[in-house]
């Protein structure tokens, strides 16, 4: 489209009824709204954490970049939607998402992934890139080209009023709680249990753990399945308030990578910190920037410029972090 057309577009905006700027300002900045937005950022971050945790765990233990992690997220969502469709039970759906994702995770670990541990990152990126193609189209082949239905369970639907008069979605609060529970669970798993000890050993020294007489390949399969299950779970949880469709895993995959890179690859703590940071940055950026620009711009243009910048914000954040800490916030070189 030649520039002339786009300038025409802009004039259209100006012709469009001017928006009372102060409304947006006044409202967007009310303290209640800010708190609510912080809550939203937190919840978005927790969603990302569920996804990033598995990714970072798998990298930490096996040193593997898994682009197909987003596909496992999708598998979880589809499994949940299917089971919810048959049984109508959300809990069964969640269980199904965990099981299906873990199953497929173990499956690809046994057939493909374990051949990649010894390979360089390039091979890993490409093999798992190929897996994305396979998973996406296979899913479409099984479930068709149309989005699936997965809804919030009755018990969790609607909102409740938080102190300070904030109306907030029960379901989103639940997601926050589940996410934090998973975080705690992973900390305990890794710091307290035998498996955790082996995992830490695996991180530090492959030979050593082999010497311990631990069957490392079994351990790896387990860890990969665990990471996959987490992805599946988040797919199902998120699927209930988003669209369950082919390709749903890709945007969140990229975000999850940004998260673990910011947090330091291999560190659960880093994943949590990174996720919250990204969640807040993205949400607050989305809401604040257009308002900031509206101060000195025509509102429509401000909204479009602001959101344009907002959509780049987390990548700018990531680049910034890596400049000062090339191995992420909690990363070890």
């Amino acid at each position, binding site marked *: 489209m030649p*520039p002339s057309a786009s300038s025409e577009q802009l004039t259209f905006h100006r012709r469009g009824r001017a928006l009372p700027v102060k409304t947006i300002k006044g409202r967007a900045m009310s303290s209640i709204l800010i708190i609510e937005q912080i809550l939203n950022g937190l919840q978005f971050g927790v969603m990302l954490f569920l996804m990033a945790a598995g990714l970072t765990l798998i990298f930490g233990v096996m040193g593997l970049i898994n682009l197909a992690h987003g596909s496992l997220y999708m598998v979880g969502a589809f499994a949940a939607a299917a089971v919810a469709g048959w049984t109508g039970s959300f809990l069964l759906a969640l269980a199904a998402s965990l099981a299906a994702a873990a199953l497929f995770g173990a499956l690809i670990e046994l057939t493909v992934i374990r051949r990649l541990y010894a390979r360089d990152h390039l091979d890993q990126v490409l093999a798992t890139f190929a897996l994305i193609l*396979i998973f996406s189209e296979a899913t479409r082949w099984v479930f068709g080209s149309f989005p699936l239905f997965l809804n919030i369970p009755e018990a969790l639907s609607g909102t409740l009023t938080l102190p300070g008069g904030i109306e907030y979605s029960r379901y989103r609060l639940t997601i926050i709680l589940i996410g934090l529970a998973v975080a705690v669970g992973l900390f305990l798993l890794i710091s307290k249990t035998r498996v955790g000890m082996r995992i830490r050993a695996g991180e530090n020294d492959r030979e050593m753990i082999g010497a311990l007489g631990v069957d490392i390949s079994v351990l790896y399969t387990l860890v990969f399945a665990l990471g996959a299950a987490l992805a599946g779970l988040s797919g199902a949880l998120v699927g209930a308030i988003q669209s369950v469709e082919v390709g749903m895993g890709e945007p969140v995959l990229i975000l999850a990578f940004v998260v673990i890179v910011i947090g330091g690859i291999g560190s659960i703590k880093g994943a949590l910190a990174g996720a919250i940071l990204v969640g807040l940055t993205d949400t607050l950026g989305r809401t604040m920037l257009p308002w900031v620009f509206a101060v000195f711009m025509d509102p429509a243009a401000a909204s479009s410029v602001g959101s344009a910048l907002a959509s*780049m914000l987390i990548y700018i954040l990531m680049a910034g972090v890596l400049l000062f800490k090339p191995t992420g916030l909690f990363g070890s070189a």
Partner: protein
Amino acid sequence: MIRERYLNLLIGALLLIVPLVALQLDEPFIITLATKAAILALAGVGLNLALGQGGLVSFGHAAYFGIGGYAMGILASHAQDYAPLMEAPFLIEGTNLMPVIWLVAIVASALAALLIGALSLRTSGVYFIMVTLAFGQMFYYFTVSWPAYGGEDGLSIYVRNQFPGVNTLDPIQFFGICFVVLMAVLFLVNRLNKSPFGLALNGAHQNEERALTVGINVYRLRLVAFVISGAITGLAGALFADLNRFVSPTMFSWHTSGEIMVFIILGGVARLFGPVAGAAVYILLEHMLGGISEYWQIYLGLILLFVVLFAKGGIVGGLARREVRHDG
């Protein structure tokens, strides 16, 4: 590997012969496909310099590909409706002359590579992969929401840009241009690989400590390689935009970065003609499988998977090595 040289000649010859045959058979679309192959190969050659020789796994080369594309799109669109690019401080007109566009594309993408590389090369390993990816995404979202040049709609150029003495609208002649550019770049890259620079780059890839302890400033070395690599990919982007007479943000998407990588793996990492073989085969697959089934990408995925897992060294690697084995 003397044998590899013959194989390279063969690959080059095939890329040249196919469209000529297609011309005889009056199958212009085959020519278009061959042109696409040549252009994507060029993009691959660019990445291969950083990735193959330097071991710099950039997951964001779509950025330079796209910048090259937009250099063409912006210049040509201004030329096409006679609106100067800028009046103040000094007048810059659009242009539809390929050589000028190429120059701008190269310079622009080189500058971007300099900036991105200077930042990214402070990291290594996965962090490098991911930070390059992040920069690619930045460009993607910027162009999607940037209204001036069409945003996600992209920019259509109604007539292909001109090259003195060539009718660029004739498929075979445009292929000729792309083929010559590809071969010229391959020649230069070959010299580069053999040069002290190439030796140092490759040495630093194999053993950074060693390169440092013989007094080589590895960071600067890699930065220069990264810039050259980005510039080549940018040139490819400009040609690609001219092939389609169209640019859009999809040139910046991370799928594009992934595909450029795929060409290299398919063809053979760090092999001079690897990207050429890889791009050609990839397009062949896309073209054939597309007709077979609605779910053709499953097959594509399986083939890629097979190559990565079992056909290490890719096409060139495989063939070249086998020939050597026949020897002894």
